[in-house]
Structures are given as C-alpha cells and as structure tokens.
C-alpha cells in the first residue's frame, strides 16, 4: 500500500538554484528506505518538504490519500513522525517525561491516559529509568531515544530520521540503530525513511534512493546498487568496506565475486 507519493517535486530557497529538482518516488507500507547523498544534495530539505515545513515550488506530495497543502498538513502530520539531527534542539520538555508528554498534549490525549503511554513508550526505547532526568544530564544517544519515544507514542505510520545519528558518538549511533531495528520488529507495517550519509546504515535498508544536486540518480535495492559502484564515487560517498575491497582488488587485476561476508572474499583469495 502506498502511503506517500511524491511526484516531480521541485523546491528552491532563493528562486535560482533548485535544491530539489523533479524528485518522484513513493513510500510503501512497511518499507525501510534510505535516502543518501553528499552534504548539500538536498536531503534535509526533502525531509522538511515531506512533513510540510516547506512548500514545494512545483510538483505534488500525496500522503495517506491527502494532498499536501496548508489545509491538510495537520492531518498528515498526525501520521508522520520526524527525528531531527540535533538532539538538543528537539527536546522541549523540562524532563524526559515532560518531553514525551508534549506530543501527547498537542494531540489532546486525555490526561488520564498520559502516564500509561509515557511508561509504555519509554520502556520501548529503554529510557524508563530516566523519566525524571533533565536533558542536560542525558547523552546525545539518550536524547534521540527520547525523541523516538515521543514520536512512537503518537502511533505514526511513517517515521523519518533526518540524519538522526550524525551528531552522536559511536555508542549513541548504535543505540539509535538498535532502536530502529526493534521498532521494525514490533511494527512491521511501520515505514521508515532514513536520511543519512552513513552507508553502513543505508545498506541495512530495503531500498536506497541516491540524491545528487536535488535529483534522484538511483533508486534500487542495496544489492543492485552495488553492481554500479560508480554512483557512489560521483556522489562522494564511500562504498561499504567489503565492496571497496572488491573494487580495489579488481583494479589490481584480481576478480572476486561478491560475498555475504568479508571472510567469504578472503577465502576466494586463498584458493
């Protein structure tokens, strides 16, 4: 089922250069899609367009059967959650509890139900011990998990991660990635859109969209994209280690077939 359909979307900040240029694709229920591209390719602008924080110059966005326009945007936002890059700049509440409650207050969730929801979703992100902690006492990874809890508490159909791990240390990155995995297991119908320039993350998804200068230059399953490694060169992204190795070996005249693991490749070399 198609949840979001984007058609020929074009956007520019200064009316001269199109930051997003004729992008079309759709998000289906239960899919994990990564959008990758170098810094400045338009990725974050795209996220803001999807959630209606920016208005497109041309083209349409249709979400959950509604056209994206100022009348429908509030209804659409009920079903899309977005986690931004900076852990501090999306933490509104004085404590973890208050921050998760913020979203519930906005949606007019009855007061009596709030505590139960807060407890449930803080457990899902393993932050139940930190409910009364203030943001200054939390790490980046913890703050991002609180953001995720706050969004899941509103039962969205789509969750967008806008470079949500790029400001985190390795531990924080791992915590958020694990959160996403658990989210998917618990709710197979949830669609996830992950905007990133971390290829290891992207290769864990179902589909990858490659953006360059506002245009979609590829949209395919990760395995298929690896057959065309030049795409990554163009966009200034790094191939995952395994594939880089294959490429370099090829340049040295050694042909190896792609394998599930590095070990598989090494074994091929030893024969």
């Amino acid at each position: 089922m198609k949840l979001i359909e984007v058609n020929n979307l074009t956007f520019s900040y200064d009316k001269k250069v199109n930051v997003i240029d004729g992008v079309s694709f759709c998000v289906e229920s239960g899919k994990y899609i990564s959008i990758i591209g170098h810094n400045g390719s338009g990725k974050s602008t795209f996220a803001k367009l999807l959630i209606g924080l920016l208005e497109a110059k041309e083209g349409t966005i249709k979400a959950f059967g509604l056209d994206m326009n100022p009348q429908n945007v509030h209804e659409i936002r009920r079903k899309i959650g977005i986690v931004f890059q900076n852990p501090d700049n999306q933490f509104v509440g004085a404590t973890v509890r208050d921050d998760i409650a913020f979203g519930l207050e906005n949606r007019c969730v009855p007061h009596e139900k709030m505590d139960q929801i807060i407890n449930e979703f803080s457990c899902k992100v393993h932050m139940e011990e930190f409910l009364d902690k203030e943001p200054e006492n939390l790490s980046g990874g913890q703050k991002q998990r609180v953001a995720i809890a706050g969004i899941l508490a509103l039962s969205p159909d789509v969750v967008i991660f806008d470079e949500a791990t790029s400001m985190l240390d390795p531990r924080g990155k791992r915590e958020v990635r694990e959160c996403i995995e658990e989210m998917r297991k618990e709710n197979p119908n949830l669609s996830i859109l992950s905007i990133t320039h971390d290829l290891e993350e992207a290769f864990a998804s179902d589909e990858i969209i490659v953006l360059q200068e506002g245009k979609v230059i590829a949209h395919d399953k990760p395995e298929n994209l690896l057959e065309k490694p030049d795409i990554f060169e163009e966009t200034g992204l790094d191939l995952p280690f395994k594939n880089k190795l294959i490429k370099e070996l090829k340049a040295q005249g050694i042909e190896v077939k792609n394998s599930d693991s590095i070990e598989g490749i090494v074994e091929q070399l030893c024969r």
Partner: protein
Amino acid sequence: MPIRFNDVFYTYQANSPFKSEALKGVSLDIKDGSFTCIVGHTGSGKSTLVQQLNGLLIPTSGSVEVNNFTVQKKHKSLKHLHSLRKEVGIVFQFARYQLFEETIEQDVAFGPMNFGAKKEEALEIAHECLKTVGIDESLFKRSPFEVSGGQRRRVAIAGILGLKPKILVLDEPTAGLDPKGAAEILKLFKELNDKGTTIILVTHDINIVYEYANDVIVMNEGKVELHCSPEELFKEDVEKYSLETPLIQQTVKMCLEKGLNISPAKIRNVHDLAVEIARVKK
C-alpha cells in the same frame, strides 16, 4: 621538545559538591612531529587532556610542559599562557560556531591580529590559510554565515592555522562530515604533518587511527590505558578498550590466518591492502 604530561590530575568544580575527576594521574610524552590520535569512550578525559595543552584548563595538580612553557597551577597568569596559545592551536568540534566577523577573511585574520599582527599582514596570512584549506578566493569577502556548514568548518580551521601553531590539536574534526569531506580534511592534516606540524587528533573513528596515525593514546576513565604505535595497538584485542575493531584490521588478520603472506606494516587503507594481496599472489 616533546610535549610532556607530568602526573596530571584535573578535577572539574573542585570546590563544589558537583566535583568530578576527569584526569587521574596522566603522564606521557608526545614527540615532535608525530601524528597522534587520542581515542577513548565519551567521558574518558580526551577533551580535558588536550585542553591542558594550551592552558584553557590548568592541571589541578601536576604540570604540562609544551615547548618552553609549563602549564601548572602556580603560573596561572594569562600573559604567560597567551603566547602558548600561538604555539598550540586547538580546533574544537563545532568550530564553525566560532565565526563572527563580517567577512571570512576578517574572521581568519582575527587570530593573528590578537597576537600582534597588523591588519594587512593578518589579511595576507588569512588568504594563505584559506587557500590551504581549500576555500576559493571568491568567498573571501563573503559573510561566514552565507556559506555551507562544511565550508565554515574549513574557515574555522584556517583561523587557527593563521596562528602558525607548531602543534595542531583537533577535536573530532570529521564528525558529521560525509566520507569525501572527511577524507579531504584528513589529507590536509597529513600534509601539515609532513611539513613538520605535530598533529594531535581526538577521535572516535578507529579507521582514522589505522590510516593516519603513527602514535595512539587510549584513554579510559581519566587514565592512559595504552600509549603505543598503531601496529602495536592492533596486535591487541581493541574491543577490551571499548573500541571497535577496524574492518581492515579484521581482514588483514583473516588473510594472515588463511596463509596469505601480506605484511601489515605496509597497509594503511583498502588500496594498500589490495596492492599487498596482489603482490603476494604473483
């Protein structure tokens, strides 16, 4: 002269109930001209350690010797430390936030002017440094807030390079950068290192250590857990230091185990690895 830490202790907010010991007896030497990476989990004391180098923080006890300067509690007067800040340049993690002047060239000239350079001289230095970091001349007279985040980061680095420091300290310079941007910046530091600047790089990225460093300091809970060359580090099981094992190292190990006689010393990155494998297979 090497940089020397003599039994340095540092406690934040020592006189309050909120005190926390960040450094617990650090003693080490960093050689001139080395490319040293400092690694360790968040809170291990890495940032605290490097801030002792230019006197932003003064040891609670112990001393730090840098070139002809000694940083210790007795000598807290700023005049003494002012000149030290010209020798040791620190570029912080979100350095793009330090930009404030009207134009990019003025901002980079700000540093040299604080150390006595006249305006024209400072601007010349600024132009030179901006070119070194890869900022095009056409941007010199633009406002720092008009350019992208990545470019602002470079301007910030240029601002410190303008001081012509003998020792350059960088705190997570590649955080948040895409791989291409990161590679460019690291290449710049390598070039500076080749020309004689001591580079001290605080990072979480173990791959940087593998590819660029010739000296590694592993911090853990305020102490130096290990201080050695990357070769020695990677002989060990780095997971016990809460570090990730670089994939390249895993691969090298696998190759050696399966009988491929590659020599790890020649391998710094994937390209080197492929070349070595090719050499061995012939």
